[in-house]
């Protein structure tokens, strides 16, 4: 590749100090554990995984909203990990973010115009008039009208708010947008509208997307590549086609199997076995994070953390079973 990926994460580690149990003992919660992922230009990379698997934390780490414990983040080939915040501000224009909850991601005390104009105020020296024009244009891009400029967020539905958030995110013509579950709070039809909008934006401006979701069916329709996270680790990555048709990691398989198919004949007849229990916060220190729930777990899995093994059809998977195949 001649050009570096727009966002590149390598060996990222993020941990939080949390109190657990009734005693309130302080423990280190490894929210992201040695995760590596890159987002190419014009590409959509989806990160899937269950609640608490560290998806949001990874995205926040890219924009330095959480402190890193290890690893590096590169934006447009530049390591931003140890950059001074003043220098980082310039790079920041290239990566923007859209959040899950459309109700709380807009300042309730600001009008739509003020909210959307904020990045312009911070990063450009457009004058008031120019800013107004640009904001009106952005509203048009996301399918809202300039009539809405002086309204407050509470006057909008969830889908409309998410459009506003997207308008703000693309205001500076970023090269990548990190979308943290941008549709999971929405109705299906609205969800589809937003996904269509994101796809349009990508087609129009070539923007890269890091699309976080726990809904595999949604991901199926937008992602070029998929990364599957489990308890802070990326257990599998690969081209979407391959991951959905031939999942390599047992967790990915279980995840796909658990998604109910909207067809009673199929769903009620061939109900596939699902894994037991749920992903409880990361207490496992050694071995594969999924070993506890894995139907195929071996002794080795509980002792050593599997490295990434290449998978047929592209991508990698972190599972000892793949090692056997390789060997």
């Amino acid at each position, binding site marked *: 590749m001649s050009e570096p990926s727009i966002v590149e994460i390598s060996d990222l580690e993020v941990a939080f100090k949390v*109190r*657990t149990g*009734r005693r*309130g003992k302080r423990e280190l919660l490894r929210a992201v554990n040695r995760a590596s992922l890159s987002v190419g230009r014009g590409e959509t990379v989806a990160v899937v995984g269950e609640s608490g698997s560290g998806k949001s934390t990874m995205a926040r780490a890219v924009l330095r909203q959480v402190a890193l414990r290890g690893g590096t983040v590169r934006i447009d080939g530049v390591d931003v990990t140890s950059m001074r915040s003043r220098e980082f501000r310039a790079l920041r224009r290239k990566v923007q973010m859209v959040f899950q909850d459309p109700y709380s991601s807009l300042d309730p005390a600001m009008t739509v115009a003020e909210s959307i104009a904020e990045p312009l105020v911070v990063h450009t020296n457009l004058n008031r008039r120019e800013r107004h024009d640009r904001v009106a244009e952005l509203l048009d891009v996301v399918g809202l009208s300039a009539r809405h400029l002086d309204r407050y967020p509470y006057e909008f539905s969830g889908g409309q708010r998410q459009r506003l958030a997207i308008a703000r995110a693309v205001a500076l013509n970023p090269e990548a947008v990190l979308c943290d579950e941008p549709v999971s709070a929405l109705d299906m039809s609205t969800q589809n509208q937003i996904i269509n909008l994101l796809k349009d934006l990508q087609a129009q401006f070539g923007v890269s997307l890091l699309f976080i979701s726990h809904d595999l069916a949604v991901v199926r329709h937008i992602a070029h590549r998929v990364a599957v996270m489990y308890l802070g680790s990326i257990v599998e990555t690969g081209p979407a086609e391959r991951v959905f048709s031939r999942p390599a990691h047992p967790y990915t398989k279980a995840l796909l199997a658990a998604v109910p198919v909207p067809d009673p004949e199929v769903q009620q007849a061939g109900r596939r076995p699902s894994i037991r229990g749920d992903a409880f916060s990361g207490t496992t220190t050694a071995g594969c994070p999924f070993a506890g729930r894995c139907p195929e777990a071996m002794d080795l899995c509980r002792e050593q953390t599997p490295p990434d093994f290449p998978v047929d059809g592209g991508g990698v998977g972190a599972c000892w079973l793949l090692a056997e195949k390789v060997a």
Partner: protein
Amino acid sequence: MVRLVGRGILAMIPSLILVSIIAFSLLYLVPGDPAVGLAGESPTPGQVELIRHNLGLDRPVVEQYLHWAGNALHGDFGRSIFTTFPVSELITSRLPITVALAVAATFVAVVVGLSLGIVAATWRGRFVDRAISALSSLGVAVPAFWLGLLLVLLFSVKAHLLPSIGYVPFSQNPGGWLVHILLPAVTLAAAPGAEIARQMRAAMVGVLGNDYVRTARAKGVRRSAVVLKHALKNAAVPVVTVIGSQFSYLLGGAVIVEQIFAIPGLGSLAVTAVLDRDMPVIQAVVVIAALAVLVVNLLVDLSYGYFSPKARLR
């Protein structure tokens, strides 16, 4: 639990040190020289200096503070400048009275406040609710000292029902205690009681809108049990917080109420001491009052653990 209490007490230490420094520095904030007052109306030359020396006022400030704080740790707050009484004795004779007053007032405020708040929340929007709201707005607004005066005029001077002044220890005469404490306690309880009622109502209304209340109702739990069990325990946290924060106002209010009803408690001790510049006494009162507030805060914090088990994690 023991650990929690221990942790709470440890956390109080920096506050206490700061309080003691503030209390001690009051001596320097307040102009005038206690030695002058002690020297009588016509001091002979050198007499003031001698008294200053005897009081240790001529030593370096830090040394004075350390000396004072060290003694205070052992419960020795020195002697009152004017009365020559050991301050700790003054405190021990006055403290129980203020504690009794504060406890009685808190009791009245909590009982009345909670019941009114619960009633108002349960019948939200109805006449009772509006009546209670009006009453509690008035209660918050009426200045304690004025209410006290009016009550004295009404119940003592006009009706001869209750005594206007003085205090009888509970141990001596429970009936007499009750009669004497009634008006002051009601006076002192009015504002916090009204505030508790308002907060209780707000908290209750908030909690009653929660999903788990609906769950309890879906279980067939009776409405009254939902309010008194499920909602009350959850509404308790903000209300207990208010009770805790009202306590410090209550101690302040006690100063004025004790003045009005001539109750020989810490508050009237404090006022006399401030007027006399009896520094050892002021310092001790400030430290003791602050300690009381800190202890109440600790109790409030500990109660969070009971009312909101999740808070134990913090």
